[in-house]
């Protein structure tokens, strides 16, 4: 079989005022018809750059510096913009990451499809419309005829991504490049979209390049895999071989960092190929340190107790109460977390898990129900001195490392803020020393104190967030999707850090994630949430081996699993 696409020794450069950045170096790839090639790597590895270089859509000032791109026996490099435009869409289709932004919200789906079809094929008018209906049916949209008149916002996220796929197929291309096609979608929808892409690839004999950071996606769909690291392809091979018996050190680290779903590890090991991953922590002796001093007396009974919590958000305002449209974000939620336990909340987006965390942290006020922290009711009257005191024992680590630190403050001031505010030390010199110790302890090094957040990577910022939480000397840590914005290898190091801290300090943790394998690694007991309500609370082992509730079983079934490791 001949090759559909052959990329040889491709170099992509981004000239900046600080010198030229080589986004891709000597990249060679081949793709046959009917084959799915997975391009996997972490952020900054250059995987999207390759996809964009193939269709000549590099963001300025990026340019292809060397190498060749041969598509169906034809060299694409050196083609003019006009010639490329007929290649794009006609012969190469694109699927982008975010279905929210890749469709025009002001035009109906039909108009957008027909427009693309008329531009890329000879079909006109009624014929183009018939073709649009055919395409929508091919991507699994029922009642396609009537759906043509619908606007993008009338579709759900998964349906919208199907429309995007239909658009990519409009010109009947031979090659489809999908850049993180399922990253913005929930697990259950991800599985459907991947199935669809795979099916279309087989039926139409398409070549597909899937660009992704997610090994689970690769395992699900790819035939062959190219692993990228710092702009280079470090390893290429059949999917089974790469996942099962990786040869390159980086691939090994990457795969070791993926949380397995079938068993619970003590820690993730051998992630030392990764930035910041090697264990350079200068640990402090917690027991004899400021950090280890108990600021709250241990109490009997559960650390956090939540009783019949309810909260509704107003969707549509109205003066009369009965006319208001409400969304029940949290619906009669009750659970208790024992001292030293890690309690997991898992569910898809919109299930209310983050809202529960924010209710416990006091960021929202419940409509009804009660939150007890260390035996103290903190929800009825949060301004009570005893409630304020109890709340201080609770700290939170947030999801987005880029917005959870104030970019105008030095790391020193960010971490020292609670210490200074509550006067937890006797002098400024002591505060600075403790901040240095904390930064050392989370693996950043005390020298980080005088720098600003923007100088750090996502994983490092998350360490700063953790240090800030520790500065309150908490007994309870709420982690709200602490690693979902991070690369898988960085995720492994952060999860290791959280595990260590919990052990050393005897922290009670509430761990929130949409990612079942991560939950599997971190939690002792797990609550599965859906539509604001808890479906099931079970021990880790029990949930993953013998889930009781229908929805839990459904979620577990969709969890990407792969052999290997």
């Amino acid at each position, binding site marked *: 079989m001949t090759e559909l696409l052959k990329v040889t020794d491709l170099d992509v450069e981004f000239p900046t005022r600080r010198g030229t950045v080589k986004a891709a170096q000597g990249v060679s790839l081949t793709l046959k018809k009917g084959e799915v090639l997975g391009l996997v790597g972490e952020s900054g590895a250059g995987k999207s750059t390759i996809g964009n270089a193939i269709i000549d859509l590099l963001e300025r000032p990026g340019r292809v510096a060397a190498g060749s791109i041969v598509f169906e026996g034809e060299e694409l490099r050196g083609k003019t913009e006009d010639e490329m435009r007929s290649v794009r869409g006609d012969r190469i289709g694109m699927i982008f990451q975010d279905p929210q932004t890749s469709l025009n919200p002001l035009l109906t789906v039909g108009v957008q499809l027909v427009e693309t079809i008329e531009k890329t094929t000879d079909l006109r008018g009624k014929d183009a419309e018939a073709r649009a209906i055919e395409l929508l049916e091919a991507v699994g949209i029922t009642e396609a005829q009537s759906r043509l008149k619908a606007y993008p916002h009338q579709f759900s996220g998964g349906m919208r991504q199907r429309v995007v796929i239909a658009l990519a197929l409009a010109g009947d291309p031979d090659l489809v490049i999908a850049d993180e096609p399922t990253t913005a979608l929930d697990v259950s929808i991800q599985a459907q979209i991947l199935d669809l892409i795979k099916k279309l690839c087989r039926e139409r004999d398409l070549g597909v390049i899937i660009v992704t950071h997610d090994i689970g996606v690769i395992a699900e769909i790819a035939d062959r895999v190219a692993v990228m690291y710092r702009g280079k392809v470090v390893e290429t091979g059949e999917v089974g071989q790469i996942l099962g018996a990786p040869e390159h050190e980086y691939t090994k680290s990457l795969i070791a960092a993926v949380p397995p779903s079938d068993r619970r590890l003590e820690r993730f090991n051998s992630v030392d190929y990764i930035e910041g991953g090697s264990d350079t922590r200068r640990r402090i002796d917690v027991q004899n340190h400021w950090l280890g001093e108990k600021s709250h007396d241990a109490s009997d009974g559960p650390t956090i107790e939540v009783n019949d919590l309810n909260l509704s958000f107003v969707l549509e305002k109205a003066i009369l109460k009965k006319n208001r449209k409400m969304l029940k974000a949290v619906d009669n939620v009750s659970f208790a977390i024992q001292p030293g336990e890690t309690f997991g909340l898992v569910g898809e987006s919109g299930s209310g898990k983050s809202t529960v965390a924010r209710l416990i*942290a006091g960021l929202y006020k419940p409509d009804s129900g009660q939150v007890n922290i260390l035996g103290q009711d903190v929800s009825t009257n949060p301004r009570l001195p005893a409630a*304020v005191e109890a*709340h201080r024992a609770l700290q939170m680590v947030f999801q987005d490392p880029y917005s959870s630190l104030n970019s105008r403050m030095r790391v020193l001031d960010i971490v020292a803020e609670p210490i200074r505010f509550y006067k937890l030390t006797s002098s400024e010199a002591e505060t600075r020393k403790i901040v240095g110790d904390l930064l050392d302890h989370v693996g950043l090094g005390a020298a980080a104190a005088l720098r600003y957040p923007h100088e750090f990577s996502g994983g490092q910022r998350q360490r700063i967030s953790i240090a800030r939480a520790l500065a309150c000397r908490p007994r309870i840590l709420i982690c709200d999707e602490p690693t979902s914005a991070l690369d898988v290898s960085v995720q492994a190091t952060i999860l290791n850090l959280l595990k260590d801290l919990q052990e050393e300090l005897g922290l009670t943790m509430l761990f929130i994630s949409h990612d079942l394998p991560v939950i599997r690694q971190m939690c002792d007991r797990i609550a599965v949430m859906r539509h604001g309500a808890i479906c099931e609370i079970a021990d880790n082992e029990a949930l993953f081996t013998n889930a009781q509730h229908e929805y839990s079983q459904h979620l577990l079934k969709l969890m990407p699993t792969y052999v290997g490791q």
Partner: protein
Amino acid sequence: MSEKTMTRWQRFLDNDIVWSFFHSPGAMLAAFVTVVFVVAAFAAPIIAPFNPFDPSQISLWDGKLPPAWVDGGQPQYLLGTDNQGRDMLSTILYGGRLSIIVGLAAVGLGMVLGVTLGVISGYVGGTTDAIIMRIADVQLTIPGILLAILINGIGRSFLPLEMREEFAIYVVILAIGLIDWPQFARVARGATLVEANKEYVQAARVIGLPAWLIMLRHILPNTLRPVLVIATIGLALAIISEATLSFLGHGIPPTTPSLGTLIRVGNEYLFSGLWWITFFPAIALVVLVFAVNLLGDWMRDALNPKLR
């Protein structure tokens, strides 16, 4: 060059905004003109050939002289003299100083008032927000200059007669500052709404910091970028407002003329052919406002990551 070996100055030069400044000729020119203007205005007592406020240096005999290069002009009066025999160049320098001072003070007042109310409005929300923003909306329905005349009139009527001239400048500052605040409040409120939802603000709330401290330490510094942009453009507007007030005779009295006062005085003589009394202050005003506006435009582009 590693970051640790960089001096503070090098790091300053390395900053994206500073870099953008040194690569945009328009901004550099505007900054140059503004700086020249400000320096000349504030150094007026040193560099001006005459002191227009000193009666002993003014001679009515020298009144209404044209610029030096025109027939009948005298070399010591480069840009001519006004009706009272004051040297135009010196008067423009002194007047420019007054205009800049009034502009800066008025914008400062409007900014402090507007940003404070805007941040509180955005962070506290609810009824407080509704009340503050409705007041701002109502105020924006009245033309600013009319409102300034009104505030100016009321302000003066509270002053005893003999103090009116002396305090006129403060009343003008108050009037312009008070018509400026809704712009600042709106921008600050918008920025606050964005920042208040970010996780670093939630983290501060979880730590247990009181609301005023969160607003002051976390939200305020992060809303300053857009505020700075409209402050620059607002400065140009405030200078124009002052000139308009003075032109209409409601601003700075003719004994200590600002640019606007000079233009008004000159306007009366325009048809008698004494064009220079109006022309030169007007040119000075246009150049100053234009330069400040250009600077504001550049700042808006440079500080907005979406346009970069």
